[in-house]
């Protein structure tokens, strides 16, 4: 193993439900310029390699990596695309620096979800073409089944899931980057339209457009360039069965394994008392609870109780999604995990503004790639 790896520059643009006057290239450029200025690096001279996360069908372009270099200043540079979540991209840039072959690597993720007219149909195309597609399963229907199983196995209630929505959307009111801040009563959340029982429409994160860019460097470069590096203590990722028929529905073994991998690198087994706050997957309300349990912050069945008790509020012992999460900020397709990691970085640098947490040293970011995948990643960051 080589030097430690730090994030020394971050930039973002967005996040908004629609952005008709901007292309994804313009949003990416805006985020990149901020990140490079933040890190004090020149993409043409200093950055040695670039990583993007993107999926062809989200972009409406085959071989989308063709269109990634120009807006990042990456033309004629070593650049590649990972068809994964932003945290998979973070893991990739992390590994590249760890090899010792690269000192400065840039990472980009974006969403132009508002351009996709048929997102439910696109998502349904991720299902097994032989076994599942003929059943015409809607994405939210699959999520509803998972939620039902999770509630059944753990005794979690629909009201506890609604409490997640209430918390995250209230948190979002303090975050100027968040598009879906709202002060809702549990009654208002529970009485919303149904998607696929027990999943309601207000349990689901709406889509948003935006871009995030980060600059990762080796320890020696971090010491030269930055007085506020954020260190990657550990990063893990994992896949479970892609098949709907042969996976666990109540628990998330892939998040458990990804977390164990990240914790092992960071040098601890149990995050309780070590990790100060978390920015985790809340694509659907119940996912935040299910993920908290898989991450080892509590036993199965306890996450809903913790939420009811206010332990995951901004003022709680373990603030979760203080930024507003995807429910409050919008879901940014493949960039979602990168948004979570960015929020952890801002908290650790003390730059989170109205939702800044006090005395935080270690934060966790976690993501899931959405229905029908069993793909997730976990990163532990520290200042």
């Amino acid at each position: 193993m080589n030097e430690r790896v730090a994030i020394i520059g971050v930039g973002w643009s967005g996040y908004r439900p629609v952005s008709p006057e901007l292309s994804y290239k313009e949003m990416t450029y805006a985020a990149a310029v901020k990140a490079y200025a933040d890190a004090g690096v020149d993409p043409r001279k200093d950055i040695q390699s670039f990583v993007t996360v993107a999926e062809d069908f989200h972009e409406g372009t085959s071989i989308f990596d063709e269109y990634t270099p120009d807006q990042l200043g990456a033309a004629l540079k070593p650049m590649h695309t990972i068809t994964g979540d932003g945290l998979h991209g973070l893991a990739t840039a992390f590994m590249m620096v760890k090899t010792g072959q690269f000192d400065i690597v840039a990472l980009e993720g974006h969403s132009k979800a508002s351009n996709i007219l048929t997102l439910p149909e696109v998502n349904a195309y991720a299902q097994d073409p032989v076994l599942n597609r003929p059943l015409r399963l809607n994405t939210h229907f699959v999520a509803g089944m998972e939620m039902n199983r999770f509630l059944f196995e753990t005794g979690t209630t629909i009201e506890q899931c609604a409490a997640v929505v209430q918390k995250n959307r209230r948190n979002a009111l303090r975050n100027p980057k968040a598009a879906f801040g709202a002060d809702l009563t549990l009654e208002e959340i529970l009485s919303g339209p149904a998607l696929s029982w027990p999943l309601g429409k207000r349990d689901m994160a709406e889509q948003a457009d935006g871009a995030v860019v980060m600059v990762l460097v080796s320890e020696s470069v971090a010491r030269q360039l930055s007085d506020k590096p954020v260190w990657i203590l550990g990063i893990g990722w994992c896949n479970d069965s892609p098949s709907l028929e042969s996976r666990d529905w109540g628990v998330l073994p892939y998040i458990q394994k990804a977390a164990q991998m990240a914790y092992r690198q960071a040098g601890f087994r149990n995050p309780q008392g070590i990790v100060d706050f978390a920015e985790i997957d809340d694509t659907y309300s119940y996912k935040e609870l299910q993920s908290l349990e898989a991450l080892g912050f509590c036993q199965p069945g306890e996450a809903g109780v913790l939420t009811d008790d206010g332990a995951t509020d901004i003022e709680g012992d373990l603030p979760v999604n203080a930024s507003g999460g995807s429910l409050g900020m919008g879901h940014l397709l493949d960039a979602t995990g990168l948004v979570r990691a960015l929020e952890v970085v801002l908290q650790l640098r003390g730059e989170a503004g109205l939702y800044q947490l006090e005395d935080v040293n270690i934060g966790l970011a976690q993501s899931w790639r959405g229905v029908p995948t069993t793909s997730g990643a976990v990163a532990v960051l520290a200042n």
Partner: protein
Amino acid sequence: MTMRKVAVVGAGMTRFVRRALETPKELAWQASRMALESCELTLEDVEAVCLGTAPDSFDGIHMNGEYLSDGAGAWRKPYMRSYVGGGTGVFVPIQGWYHVASGLFDIVLVVAEEKMSSYYPHAQAAFITIFDHTTERPLKPNLLWIFALEMNRYMTMYGISKADIARVSVQHKRNAAHHPCALLGDANITVEDVLNSEVLAWPVQRYDVSPVSDGAVAVVLAAEHVAKRLTDKPVWIEGVGWNLDTAHWTNRDLVYPRYVEYAARMAYEMAGIREPKKEIHIAEPYDPFDYKALHHLEGLQLAERGQAPQLYIDGTAALDGNMPVCPSGGLLGVGNPIAAAGLMKIAELFWQLRGEAGGRQVPGQPRRGIAQAWGDLMQVGTVVIMGR
């Protein structure tokens, strides 16, 4: 600080065919199983999986990497899919390399799968969506004709004849006659056959192009201490390089692939190679079209600009020449299931450098080889140097 050395310790591949009956998952699994069996490992030993496959539109599956994950052996394992278009096949071992070189993993399975026949009636139609949605797609461009532009530019600039370029196709298809997985091996093909084949988009004729195919290839990578335990004949990844040029391909001078040169220079520097022409013993440049092999040999600094046809004329590139080119038979001979075809070149170097290439074994116990792929809008080069 020294970098961790990474070795290829096993390889496997399916036959390349026009229409496979297997699903994409099954193809990926067949190659993975053969690669693991070749080095007497099981899935239990694999710590992480890297997957390469070209556009999702071929399989018609959104997030195709997720769909293929269990076929590639990634159940409950760290798994990622990397992507650089046509260059993916030689990039995915680079992805495997940084997985191991980072110190995070000791044994990584690298899998490349492509099933182009699912796209009915012909995969060519999928390529319309690779072009810019505003400036190019309305023109309904076709890959054959943009490469015809490039081939024409190359021929015109250096005064190269169609017959000299056809030698590439002939030699690669003849080499492939010895490859048990090949789709288009032909020991008796001649330059006349190529020149008399159907014109697709002048100057590109049918035998100038590799076939649309289905297939999968897998290799196993290991860290030094593990590789030495697993095999007496590890083949080391000595250098890696990749480079992506601007998306504005219409602004590029198509006569020379600068992005391949930059990728090659990155790999040569890492491998400590100063004189590629002397130090590279086998070359597997990317050859989806016959002129592309020439183009890439120049980008790889293995021939002067405009001089690559000479390697085929004077026999340097022959199986028993000083620097055999595409002893596997290349994409022109073995077939072109896009990502799998690139990884096939890595598998070929592995077998050649271990002396296990059977009827197409290069004589003289070659010590070092280079594999390269290319893709996107005539835009990306990926290079791996392997040695024993």
